[in-house]
C-alpha cells in the first residue's frame, strides 16, 4: 500500500467518523426495528465542529469543508507527530535533525525550503497556525464560496550524503500511526428575527410606501488581526405566505436573482401573512420570518401583541393543529391510544412583567378527550409563574369538533333527575340502549363556550380564551353585570375559516385578516 492509498484511506475514515456516518450499515440490515419517530427533532442547524485527520506523511494533504458562500471559520490544529532520524554518522558536522516530537507548527530547519519541517499549513497562500516552532494558535480564515481549502503537512528535513549514510540522503521518516487533527468550525452567526416597518396594516395594503422587511445577523462583523470584516450574508429567498392563501400575491416583490446582495425586501401585501427570509450566513442557510396582521378591534392586548409577533394567536391556532381538529373524528383509535387522535388541547397565556408582552405555556393532560381537558390550578397560579413576575392572563383551550360532527367522550352524557346515560366513549362502542350508549352531536356556542367553560371562568377568576374549529376565537370573562340577557357573552374574533354554526360566508375583509399560523413543522 503506497502512501497515496494510505492517505486516501485515512482521510475517508476520518471523515466518516467526524461526520457521524458510522451507522452507514442501517439498522434494518441488522434486523433492528426502530420505533417510528413521534416528534421532529432539530433537523438543521449550525454546522457542528468537524475534525479532519492529517497524517504525518510529508506533503500529505486533507481537504477541509466547502461552504456555499463565503464563511469565516476557525481552525484548531493539535497532535504531535514523531520525527524519526537515523543515527548521525560519526564525523558529520552538518546541522542534523535528530529524533523528536514535532508540534503542529513544525520544526525549524534552515536547510529545508521554507525553513520549516512537518508543520501543518494551509495551501493557496492561506495563513497557517503560527510561526514555525511556535506554540500554535487558533487560525481564523475566510473560506471562500465553494472553495475547498486544504491543509498540508510540511516536508521532512533535508539531509545530505554522509550525514546518516554514505549512500543515501533519506535520513528521516515518520510513522503512519501518527497524525494531527484539525478541528474546523464556522464562526457562529445567527440570522436575527426579521424586522419590519409595519407589524399591522389594513389589507389590501395600498399605502404609497411599501412595507420594508429587513434581514440582519448577529454578530454582523468579525475582527481578525487589525481588520474588521463583515460576516458574509447572502439572501437566498424572500417569500410572502398569505394566511388566507386564496389570492395570488404579486410576484413583483423583491425582484432579485439569488444570491442577492440586498438585505431587505419591499412589499405591499394583499392580506395578513408572513414574510419568510432565507439567508446563508455562518456556514448554513438560516430561516426567519415576521408576520403582518390586522389588530383585533377590541384591542385585546394578548391577541394584539405584535411586539412578540402575535405569538399568542399562533399558539391558539396551534392548539387546533395539536388537537387534530382536521382528522376524522374516528381516527387513531386503538388499544394503545384509547382516546383517538382528536382531543382538546390547552395552554395558559401569561403576561410578562414590565410590559414585555405575552407568552404561552402548554398544558398537558393525558386524559384529555374530545369533550374536556383539565387545566390544574397550578398551571395558572400567580404565586408560581413560569417566569418571575409573570401573571396569568387567561386559560385557553381548543374546541376541536364541529357541530355537525359526532363526538366521543368518556364519562359524559345526558342526565335527568339523578340518573345518567353515557355517550359513546369511542367509535367502537355499541350503540345499544341497554348499554346506555348514545352518540352525541356537539354545538359550539354562538358567542360563548360551553356552560362548563363559563363555570371555569367563574372558578378561575381569569378569562378563558377559546379557539374553535368553527374558525372563531372567543374570550370569555366575568362581567360585572347581573343581567345576563342582551350583553355580549364573549368577545368573538374571526381567526380563520371554519366549519360550524359560524360558517356564515366569510367576508373578504375577514379573509384578509386571517390569523397567521406557525411557520414550519
Amino acid at each position, binding site marked *: 500500500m503506497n502512501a497515496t492509498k494510505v492517505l486516501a484511506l485515512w482521510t475517508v475514515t476520518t471523515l466518516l467518523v467526524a461526520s457521524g456516518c458510522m451507522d452507514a450499515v442501517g439498522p434494518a440490515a441488522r434486523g433492528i426495528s426502530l420505533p417510528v419517530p413521534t416528534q421532529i427533532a432539530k433537523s438543521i442547524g449550525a454546522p457542528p465542529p468537524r475534525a479532519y485527520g492529517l497524517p504525518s506523511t510529508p506533503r500529505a494533504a486533507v481537504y477541509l469543508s466547502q461552504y456555499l458562500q463565503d464563511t469565516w471559520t476557525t481552525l484548531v490544529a493539535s497532535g504531535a507527530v514523531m520525527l524519526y532520524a537515523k543515527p548521525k554518522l560519526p564525523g558529520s558536522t552538518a546541522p542534523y535533525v535528530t529524533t523528536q516530537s514535532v508540534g503542529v507548527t513544525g520544526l525549524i530547519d534552515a536547510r529545508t525550503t521554507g525553513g520549516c519541517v512537518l508543520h501543518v499549513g494551509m495551501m493557496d497562500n492561506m495563513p497557517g497556525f503560527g510561526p514555525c516552532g511556535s506554540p500554535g494558535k487558533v487560525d481564523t480564515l475566510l473560506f471562500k464560496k465553494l472553495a475547498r481549502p486544504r491543509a498540508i503537512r510540511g516536508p521532512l528535513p533535508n539531509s545530505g550524503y554522509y550525514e546518516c549514510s554514505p549512500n543515501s540522503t533519506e535520513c528521516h521518516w515518520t510513522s503512519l500511526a501518527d497524525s494531527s487533527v484539525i478541528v474546523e468550525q464556522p464562526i457562529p452567526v445567527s440570522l436575527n428575527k426579521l424586522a419590519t416597518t409595519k407589524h399591522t396594516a389594513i389589507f389590501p395594503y395600498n399605502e404609497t410606501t411599501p412595507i420594508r422587511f429587513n434581514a440582519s445577523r448577529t454578530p454582523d462583523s468579525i475582527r481578525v488581526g487589525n481588520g474588521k470584516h463583515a460576516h458574509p450574508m447572502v439572501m437566498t429567498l424572500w417569500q410572502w405566505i398569505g394566511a388566507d392563501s386564496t389570492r395570488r400575491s404579486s410576484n413583483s416583490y423583491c425582484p432579485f436573482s439569488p444570491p442577492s446582495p440586498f438585505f431587505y425586501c419591499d412589499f405591499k401585501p394583499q392580506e395578513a401573512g408572513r414574510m419568510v427570509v432565507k439567508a446563508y450566513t455562518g456556514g448554513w442557510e438560516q430561516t426567519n420570518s415576521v408576520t403582518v396582521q390586522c389588530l383585533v378591534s377590541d384591542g385585546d392586548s394578548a391577541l394584539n401583541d405584535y411586539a412578540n409577533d402575535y405569538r399568542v394567536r399562533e399558539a391558539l391556532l396551534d392548539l387546533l393543529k395539536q388537537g387534530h381538529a382536521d382528522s376524522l373524528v374516528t381516527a387513531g383509535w386503538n388499544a394503545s391510544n384509547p382516546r383517538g387522535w382528536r382531543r382538546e388541547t390547552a395552554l395558559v397565556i401569561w403576561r410578562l412583567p414590565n410590559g414585555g408582552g405575552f407568552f404561552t405555556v402548554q398544558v398537558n393532560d393525558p386524559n384529555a378527550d374530545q369533550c374536556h381537558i383539565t387545566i390544574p390550578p397550578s398551571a395558572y397560579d400567580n404565586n408560581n409563574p413560569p417566569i418571575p413576575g409573570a401573571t396569568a392572563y387567561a386559560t385557553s383551550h381548543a374546541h376541536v369538533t364541529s357541530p355537525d360532527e359526532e363526538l366521543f367522550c368518556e364519562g359524559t352524557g345526558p342526565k335527568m333527575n339523578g340518573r345518567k*346515560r353515557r355517550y359513546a366513549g369511542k367509535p367502537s362502542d355499541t350503540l345499544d340502549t341497554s348499554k346506555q350508549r348514545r352518540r352525541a352531536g356537539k354545538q359550539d356556542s354562538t358567542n360563548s363556550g360551553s356552560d362548563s367553560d363559563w363555570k371555569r371562568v367563574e372558578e378561575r377568576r381569569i378569562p378563558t380564551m377559546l379557539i374553535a374549529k368553527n374558525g372563531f376565537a372567543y374570550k370569555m370573562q366575568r362581567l360585572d353585570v347581573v343581567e*345576563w340577557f342582551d350583553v355580549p357573552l364573549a368577545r368573538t374574533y374571526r381567526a380563520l375559516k371554519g366549519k360550524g354554526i359560524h360558517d356564515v360566508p366569510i367576508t373578504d375583509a375577514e379573509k384578509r385578516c386571517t390569523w397567521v399560523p406557525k411557520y414550519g413543522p
Partner: protein
Amino acid sequence: MRYLIAGFLCLLVTSAGPIEGQNTCQGVDRTSAVFLANFRGMMSASGAGLRARFSLPSVPPSEIILVTDPATCARAGQAADSVMTSWDPTDPPIATTAPLYVIKIGTSYAVVDVSDPDPNDEYASVFVFGPGWVFRGIVAM
C-alpha cells in the same frame, strides 16, 4: 262536600308551588344565557343543518325564551324522564323537583338538568323536543 274541600286543597297546593315529583323552572342566570345564545345562534342561515337535525323551526330570536311556567317545566321533566327510561327501563329517573332550564323555541322545547354537576361533564346535554313533546335528540352545549 268533603270531596269538594279536598279538591280545593289539592288545587291550592298545585298552584302554590311544586308538588313532590315535579320539576320546577330554573330562573334567569348565566347558564340560561348560554343556552339561549346557543339556540339563537342556530337560527342563522348557517344553522340550517343543525336545525334540520333536531327538526327545529326557524324562528326569530325573540321567540326563543326561557320558560318560567311551572306546568310546562313539570311536563318537560316528565318528557325527559320518559326518554331516559326508554333508553334503560331498568334504571328510570326518580321524579324530583330539581329545577330545569326549559327553553321554548317557537313550538319546540329544549330541556336540561344541570343539577348534580359532574366535573367530567364539559358539556351540558340538552334534550330537544318538538311539538307535542316528541323527542328530537340531544345536543351538547
